[in-house]
């Protein structure tokens, strides 16, 4: 039977290069924007409204460093896997395995959390219409399966959908901003009365940094599309930096509107703060718009997460860091279809635990570990391939200041996480240490070392 199968032609199979900078923007912003609709406001609970604003901009600086570093390295390593591939080329196999695992865990868990949000929104909608016992599970499953089906059938349609719904969700925040008459204090917005001093002092500001990541978590996922984008050296930096600017604007107006409408004691524990803001304005159209926009943002995030997690898993499989079975590409749709399928039951399993805060914490910490790696990666990258040795689509300025700033802010965020979720932090560290031991002792022997380096790069300096 094997001889009847369609076998390899002269040209190896590859993913389609059909994306443009707008798709990259949609991938990055799409994953993140749900954090503007919910989650960011826990910063307020940790340290008050001003602490939330400080966290918004300090963590904004952290992610700006991430975006700059990612843009430079990815503009040379135009391959699926993103930071995993960077680690493989620049640091080594153990780091690459860990980074790959961070990416898969971060995005799969974030996808599960997004699906839970869609389920909860459906339940809220049913309750408004008088039905109080809606089971959320079928909607959680449908969200994951439908988006996996879309990802299975092609990246262009997947990210075009993300572009449309992410843009609409972002515009809903802009509409909300202009609905509160932002230029005239005291008419709708009550910042003077609502903004207080730091209720828990500066330690509250530090503690709020952990949840400040919700404003931007996932923007680094843009580089997972590097193998499917036309002119990656130009498109990835454009899409990523454009996405980062969009998020800085979205985060700031989100804080400005919510902090001017709700006292920090309420805002700090609200589940859907932007929907609550629309409710306070007394407009049913705004309420409906924010409800739909929250659902769009959660779906866009889950969609981007499936895209990124499958590319990371596919890359691990292609290099035999995981079973090579997952390194297959669909001959018609040109997607890593086995990786997409494999992650469906995992995402649903995480979602069925119902532990939204734990799932999100694991996701955030996996992301944070990945950002910490980037600092060492960037320093080593510039040493091994100095400027002028290979073509870079983008060169980030002031090196090594962004890398040092990123490392400093990562350390501060680890401390903030330790304050609130110390046990989770330690258990996640233990998980990755055990996974590393497994990789060294049981898995690395299957890796074909020469086969994993197929990029036409020059020999690094000093080698």
């Amino acid at each position, binding site marked *: 039977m094997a001889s009847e199968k369609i076998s390899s032609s002269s040209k190896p199979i590859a993913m389609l290069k059909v994306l443009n900078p707008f798709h990259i923007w949609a991938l990055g912003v799409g994953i993140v924007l749900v954090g503007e609709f919910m989650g960011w406001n826990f910063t307020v609970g940790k340290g008050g409204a001003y602490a939330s604003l400080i966290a918004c901009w300090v963590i904004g600086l952290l992610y700006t460093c991430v975006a700059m570093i990612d843009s430079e390295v990815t503009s040379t390593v135009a391959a699926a896997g993103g930071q995993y591939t960077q680690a493989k080329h620049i640091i080594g196999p153990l780091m690459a395995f860990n980074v790959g695992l961070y990416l898969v865990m971060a995005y799969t868990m974030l996808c599960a959390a997004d699906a839970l949000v869609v389920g909860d929104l459906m339940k809220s909608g049913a309750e408004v219409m008088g039905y109080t016992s809606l089971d959320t599970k079928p909607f959680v499953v449908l969200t994951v399966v439908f988006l996996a089906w879309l990802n299975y059938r092609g990246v262009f349609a997947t990210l075009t959908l993300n572009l449309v719904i992410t843009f609409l969700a972002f515009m809903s925040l802009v509409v909300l901003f202009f609905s509160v008459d932002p230029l005239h204090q005291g008419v709708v917005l009550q910042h003077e009365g609502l903004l207080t001093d730091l209720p828990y002092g500066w330690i509250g500001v530090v503690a709020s940094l952990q949840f400040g990541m919700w404003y931007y978590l996932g923007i680094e996922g843009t580089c997972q599309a590097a193998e499917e984008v036309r002119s990656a050296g130009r498109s990835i930096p454009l899409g990523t930096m454009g996405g980062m600017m969009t998020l800085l604007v979205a985060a700031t107006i989100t804080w400005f509107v919510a902090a001017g409408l709700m006292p920090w004691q309420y805002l700090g524990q609200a589940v859907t703060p932007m929907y609550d803001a629309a409710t306070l304005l007394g407009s049913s159209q705004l309420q409906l718009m924010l409800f739909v926009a929250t659902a769009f943002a959660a779906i866009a995030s889950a969609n981007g997460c499936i895209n990124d997690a499958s590319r990371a898993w596919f890359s691990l499989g292609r290099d035999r860091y995981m079973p090579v079975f997952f390194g297959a590409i669909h001959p018609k749709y040109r997607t890593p279809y086995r990786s997409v399928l494999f992650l469906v039951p995992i995402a649903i399993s995480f979602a069925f635990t119902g532990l939204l805060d734990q799932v999100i914490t694991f996701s955030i910490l996996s992301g944070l570990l990945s950002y910490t790696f980037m600092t060492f990666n960037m320093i080593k990258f510039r040493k091994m391939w100095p400027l002028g040795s290979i073509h870079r689509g983008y060169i980030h300025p002031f090196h090594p200041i962004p890398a040092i700033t990123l490392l400093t802010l990562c350390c501060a965020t680890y401390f903030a996480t330790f304050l609130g979720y110390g046990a989770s932090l330690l258990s996640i560290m233990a998980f990755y240490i055990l996974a590393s031991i497994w990789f060294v002792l049981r898995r690395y022997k299957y890796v074909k070392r020469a086969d994993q380096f197929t*990029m036409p790069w020059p020999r690094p300096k000093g080698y």
Partner: protein
Amino acid sequence: MGFWDILVYVTWSLSATMLIWMLVDAFMISSQYDEAYLMSSREGSEDEVVHGVHMDKEMT
């Protein structure tokens, strides 16, 4: 049976249909194509674009 009950059944059915479709398609692909071909992709293999190309080579 009310609207929401029907919606729940439709939701489960849609999920099952799409999941089965993907599984069947994946199985069909595996039976029609050689594994070596499905796994023949290489990073950077089509990237004679500019990425990672040595500056000296690029200038010539």
